[in-house]
């Protein structure tokens, strides 16, 4: 049973050791980042999420849209239970498999095959489960004999394939993806999309942050537009993409 319920959450990062003597208050409208403000004793506070409320259930495939620093990754990290919100309440039910960083849980000096076990264990699988699934993961990654070589011999696309293969083979209810599907080549993209589609059909919950409208259109059925940590729009994917493109001044059919 997958459920993500965010009730009016805000998240403030204290930024230590950084006094604001350089910064002049600019009147220009900013296009990047969250909201900066001064906390007690002069240090800066970044308000990365501002009163976000969101309710997602099984079968929802949410696209996260927004400018650089709009809070997409931070929101994913809240959903992954990595960050506890400073205000508000987040309820996340179900097993979560985050795929935020492709390099994570990967040891460059170990073989690809060993890394299936390390990353898989981190994602909450048991060794017995992994032994059963190792072949399927190896096959999906299409890395063949490269799996017996150390990871440092891999290209970044090959690493992405392996990381993606492991994360999508985990028994999970919620899959969180951050801008990663775009790394592979065309053939792998197609395969990844198919995998994510079956994943979505099994009425699991998928949240994907991406700047590629094509990827989002292929995979998602809902969208959230974030701006400086606030939810600007939530609803049908096409409408939100349209709104985002209009705001950014580009054609929605691009990318």
């Amino acid at each position, binding site marked *: 049973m997958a459920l993500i319920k965010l009730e009016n959450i805000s998240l403030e990062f204290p930024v*230590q050791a950084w006094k604001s003597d350089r910064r002049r208050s600019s009147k220009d409208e900013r296009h990047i980042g969250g909201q900066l403000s001064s906390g007690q004793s002069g240090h800066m506070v970044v308000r990365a999420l501002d009163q976000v409320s969101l309710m997602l259930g099984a079968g929802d495939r949410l696209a996260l849209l927004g400018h650089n620093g709009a809070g997409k990754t931070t929101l994913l*990290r809240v959903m992954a*239970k990595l960050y*506890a919100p400073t205000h508000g309440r987040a309820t996340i*039910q179900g*097993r979560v498999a985050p795929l*935020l960083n492709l390099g994570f849980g990967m040891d460059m*000096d170990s073989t690809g095959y060993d890394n299936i076990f390390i990353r898989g*264990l981190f994602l909450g699988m048991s*060794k017995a489960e992994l032994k059963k699934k190792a072949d399927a993961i190896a096959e999906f990654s299409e890395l063949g004999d490269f799996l017996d070589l150390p990871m440092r011999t891999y290209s970044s696309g090959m690493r992405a394939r392996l990381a993606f293969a492991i994360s999508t083979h985990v028994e999970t209810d919620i899959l969180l993806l951050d801008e990663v599907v775009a790394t592979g080549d065309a053939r792998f993209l197609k395969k990844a999309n198919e995998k994510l589609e079956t994943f979505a059909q099994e009425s699991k919950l998928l949240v994907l942050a991406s700047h590629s409208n094509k990827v989002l259109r292929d995979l998602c059925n809902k969208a959230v537009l974030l701006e400086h940590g606030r939810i600007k729009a939530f609803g049908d994917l096409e409408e939100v993409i349209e709104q985002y493109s209009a705001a950014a001044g580009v054609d929605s059919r691009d990318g």
Partner: protein
Amino acid sequence: MLQVDSPSADDGFKDAKSRTVGSQVLEVLREVRDGWRWRELWMTLGWREVQMRHRRSEIGPFWNTLSLAFVAICIGGLYGGIMSRPTSDYIPHLVTGYMTWAFLQALVIEGKDAFVSNAAAIREIAVPGTVYVYKLLWKNLIILGFNSLVYIGVLVLYQVSPFPAVFLVVPALALVLFNGIWVSLLLGLINVRYRDFGQLIPNAMRLAFFVTPILWYPDSVSGLRAIFVYLNPFYYFIELVRAPLLGQVPGALIWTVASGITLVGWGITLPIYAHWRRRIAFWI
């Protein structure tokens, strides 16, 4: 298999202000328990770290054994003479004390890095913080195992029979490990926020090595100097493990003080860690 899918695990995600200290402490205890469920992960990672330290060497982790053997031969030969003790007495004292010290020191020095050295994982995946602590305890337990080969060699060489007191080493090590958990949680937490603290620890430990009776005997100091023995927490833990290894039963004072330190340590750590642990991901 994991606790995260039960609704109770979401308690920790309520508004920080609405939670009482009591329920926060309960969450920490739950984390201590949940870490155990992840044993396949930390056992794998711990063992890998042991191998990693001696990557591509032929002897591998047996370098731990060898370096302790060198210490036993060189320091044992030299200081045994300085201390004018017979080698058959001094070398077992040195080897057991030194390998216990190496274990304690690793728990403190690596404990302070429990979170800092796992920054990548903490930013990526929500596993109980105790997983990183258990990983380092397990790793150092394995290294202690490799070191104990020298100990067995010494027993055979000097025909010391530690039985039956040697079995007391099991509860002794359990108590040390139980202390290792709070030390790592507390020092690890402080070091995430104040990195200078982490620079201080190895210096303090280097000093502690010389003022703790490892190279020398606790009964060879007298008068005011005895405070280095009796006010030194490391002395009690060293003695707790060393005595059974040499076939002696640790005195009641040793057990009492070691248990007292355990209680005080946990008493200090629980509320502090309970209050700040959710900030670790922000500070890392």
